[in-house]
């Protein structure tokens, strides 16, 4: 079976109706272990018109780009956790034809290391206990109370896979991935992200005047948000975590964070500037769920704001946040190699 697939990365599959004015590219995405990979964003760009067509691979790893006007296409595939795939030769699409283009996509991160392999990440996500049911609690002054230990947000649907980057940022992101993410700050035990939650456990501590998250798997393991009505300081020194203030819009807490430095890599390799503004909207529709909508706006690096949505679930009260002193034994740095 493999011998059929691997050498024939692109082949003519079938002729469709002569009436059809469009062509199709279809195929399967697999990793270095030849396992199917879902959720990969596949893009076909028409070389002549610049038109971009997008699809995502499904559970079986397969994808289909249909309704493609005839022409020459550049095929790329991206997903966090994997190397960017760029097909070397241009794909010729003709009306009424279906082409097959299988995509071998290389693992990037530690998807093999015991404890950090994909199956275990999947288990950590799927093995989460069902959150309790009931109404969302309120603070004595009637505001929604977000306190609790939360299993970090898992992305919801209907959001963009990543920001549309300005050319310089595109170039820098490619450079970073081409060099195996060697200089990613988190590899050096510097902060992982600019948001107040990570995907493992997060404890929210809330009072009338502030909200703090204790983040299990980030550096530093906390973020603080002022709720006392103050604004952002004018003389704030750019920092990794920025300056956060929160205001209430009904039952939604809107956290506005500015004052970032430009050092964090978003997601895996996405650059940003010190113009970055992160708006986090928190809503607790019931006892067990925390909806988190985040908008990343950076006119210095993005064409338009990038919005993500996620839902955190309340963890059992017995859950304890573990320690992550990253620099305790970080032997990796001296062995990281770029291209």
């Amino acid at each position, binding site marked *: 079976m493999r011998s059929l697939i691997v050498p024939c990365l692109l082949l003519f599959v079938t002729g469709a109706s002569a009436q059809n004015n469009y062509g199709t590219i279809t195929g399967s995405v697999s990793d*270095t272990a030849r396992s199917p*990979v*879902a*959720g*990969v964003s596949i893009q076909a760009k028409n070389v002549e018109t610049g038109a971009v067509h997008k699809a*995502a691979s499904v*559970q079986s790893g397969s994808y289909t780009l249909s309704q493609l006007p005839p022409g020459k296409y550049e095929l790329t595939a991206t*997903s*966090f*956790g*994997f*190397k960017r795939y760029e097909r070397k030769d241009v794909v010729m699409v003709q009306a009424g034809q279906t082409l097959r283009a299988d995509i071998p996509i290389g693992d*990037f*991160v*530690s998807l*093999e*290391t*015991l*404890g*950090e392999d*994909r*199956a*275990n*990440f*999947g*288990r950590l*996500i*799927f*093995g989460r206990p069902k959150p309790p049911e009931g109404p969302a609690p309120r603070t004595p002054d009637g505001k929604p109370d977000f306190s609790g230990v939360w299993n*970090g947000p898992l*992305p919801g649907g209907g959001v963009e896979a990543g920001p549309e980057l300005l050319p310089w940022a595109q170039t820098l992101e490619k450079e970073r991935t081409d*060099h*195996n*993410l*060697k200089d*990613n700050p*988190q*590899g050096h035990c510097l902060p*992982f*992200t*600019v*948001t107040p939650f990570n*995907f*493992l456990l997060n404890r929210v501590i809330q009072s009338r005047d502030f909200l703090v998250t204790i983040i299990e*798997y980030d550096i530093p393991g906390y973020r603080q948000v002022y709720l006392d009505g103050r604004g952002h300081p004018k003389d704030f020194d750019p920092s990794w975590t920025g300056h956060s203030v929160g205001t209430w819009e009904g039952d939604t807490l809107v956290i506005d964070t500015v004052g970032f430095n430009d050092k964090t890599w*978003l*997601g895996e390799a996405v650059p940003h500037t010190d113009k970055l503004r992160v708006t986090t909207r928190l809503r607790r529709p019931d006892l067990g769920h925390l909806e988190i909508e*985040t908008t*990343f706006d950076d006119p210095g690096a993005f064409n338009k704001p990038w919005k*993500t949505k996620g839902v955190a679930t309340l963890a059992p009260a017995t859950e304890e946040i573990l*320690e*992550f*002193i990253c620099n305790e*034994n*970080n*032997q*990796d740095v001296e*062995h*990281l*190699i770029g291209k």
Partner: protein
Amino acid sequence: MRIDMALMIVGLALLLSPEPMTSHHSFTAEYDSAKLMQFMGTITKVEWTNPHARFYLDVKDARGAVTNWNFELGSPILLRKLGWKQDSLKIGEQVSVEGYLAKDGAKMANARKVTLADGRNIFAGSSADGNPTR
């Protein structure tokens, strides 16, 4: 089947998340996925530390020369959530290890499978049963 589903969701989650849902460093920057090696030896040291737990193995070659190899595991945070503890590996134990070699030639590898002399797998993270085997 369960693993397929896990792969699907993790893939999707990775795609859409602004936070890295992965190891603290890039696998490909440090290890060579084309150099998967088998080792047999005796555990000499266990480091239950962040960002990675590690263990060290004395491996004897065909001529009897002994080399001490350094194996990387996941973070204790992630290992503990899966039921593993710092004594899951014991000094003096004979194990065989499957791992990817470091690219820079250091005596280091990334452990993807650890098997005891009786055939049981430790840290069986890739198994589908959902439980550590020890």
